[in-house]
């Protein structure tokens, strides 16, 4: 069933149908979420206005990990079944993943200055996120080093799978080590510890970011399919 959808012939029109949905989700939720988050949401009792960076920081942090996870899944498909679409997915994703990781690092640093008094500390979460950026770079370097696309995809798949250990480390770093970075406040046992009026725009932003990612990836994959058909 899944493998049927993974055939380029079926995937191509399907992607074409989905793309406008993703685009409009991205645009509308992004605009609303941003306005809500930056203008309407209440000022934080402890952090003041600075906390608003959260509306970019947290969704891009999630994206950086979500994109990697999606790559790891496609990597498995590439290595086990040699699925064409999974190869394309793998080829198109790391650039975007690296960008979101970069944004996370930059917004986190900017947020760190008022909160912790420094742009950067070497604690486990920050470092593992930086390592994620380097892993993305390594994957991109392999892509650049191999002119042949299919070969490149298989090599990238291997590195992606091996590098996946880093994802749980990012996620659980706040529990495993004592860190300056705060612990999970949303996806945790006993429900989120953030006020709903702050939470809703956050989720909107997250949805908007992921729609943006899907929209771009589908677009790139379609051009790749077109190019290989030509």
């Amino acid at each position, binding site marked *: 069933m899944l493998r049927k959808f993974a055939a380029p012939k079926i995937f191509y029109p399907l992607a074409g149908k989905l793309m406008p949905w993703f685009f409009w989700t991205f645009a509308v939720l992004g605009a609303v979420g941003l306005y809500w988050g930056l203008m309407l949401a209440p000022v934080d009792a402890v952090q003041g206005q600075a906390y608003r960076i959260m509306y970019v920081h947290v969704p891009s942090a999630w994206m950086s990990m979500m994109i990697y996870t999606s790559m790891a899944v496609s990597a498995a498909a590439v290595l086990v079944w040699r699925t064409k679409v999974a190869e394309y997915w793998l080829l198109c994703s790391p650039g975007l993943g690296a960008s979101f990781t970069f944004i996370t690092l930059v917004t986190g640093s900017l947020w760190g200055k008022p909160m912790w008094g420094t742009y950067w500390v070497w604690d*486990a979460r920050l*470092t*593992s996120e930086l*390592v994620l950026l*380097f*892993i993305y*770079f*390594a994957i991109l*370097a*392999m892509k650049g*080093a*191999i002119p*042949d696309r299919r*070969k490149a995809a*298989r*090599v990238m798949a*291997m*590195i992606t799978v*091996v*590098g996946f*250990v*880093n994802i749980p*480390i990012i996620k659980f770093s706040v529990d495993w*080590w004592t860190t300056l970075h705060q612990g999970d406040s949303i996806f945790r046992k006993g429900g989120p510890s953030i006020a709903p009026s702050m939470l809703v725009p956050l989720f909107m932003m997250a949805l908007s970011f992921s729609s943006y990612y899907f929209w771009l990836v589908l677009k790139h994959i379609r051009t790749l399919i077109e190019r290989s058909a030509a």
Partner: protein
Amino acid sequence: MTENGFTLRRYFFFCLRLLFRQRRDVALPLFFFLLVSSLFPLAFANHAVPLLAPAALWITLLLSVLLSLDNLFREDVEDGFMEQLMTARQPLGLLVAVKMLAHWIAYILPIFICLPLTGLWYAMPSDTLFVLALSLLLGTPTLLALGGLAAALAAGLKQGGTLLILVTLPLATPVLLFGLTMVDMSQNGLSYAAARDFLAAMAVVSVGVGPLVTAAALRIGMD
């Protein structure tokens, strides 16, 4: 089928002989380890050397392992020996495993033998040294597996040692982190079992899966 091709045992000794011949002395990664680990106390002067010892030694080991792996497969690809390995009766994964074992014996083992000496330099208490040695020992299989994979990719792709390091270092960081956590825990009198088990689990996976993945990478590179 008739008896032909080379056996694993013969290939193992072939690798060892080559390693010992090629470098004249296999002591070079060891020297690198000793040299670089002596650079740290030198460079850091009086700033709390014993405190830094585990970290400095871990980084040095990491770099020594990666350096020693630089041309693990490149030479084989360049002189055409890789074709012999690929057409051998034995599966390529096994041959790779044998080669890595020989590599470990020739390059990594001497480092462990000299570790007490380094501990002395850094004035490390012997129980810290023990935990450090254990963490390094548990770390090396994973480092070797990661480096081997990267070396296989680099060899097939005609890329130099720097690519190897670029690919391996980020992947190796978790190993480093857990290794240091182990030492840290024990220094603070806490149980380091969790980190140790994690490293051990990674080592087991590396030994089991590493050679297979590396073999696959080699085949892709030869494509």
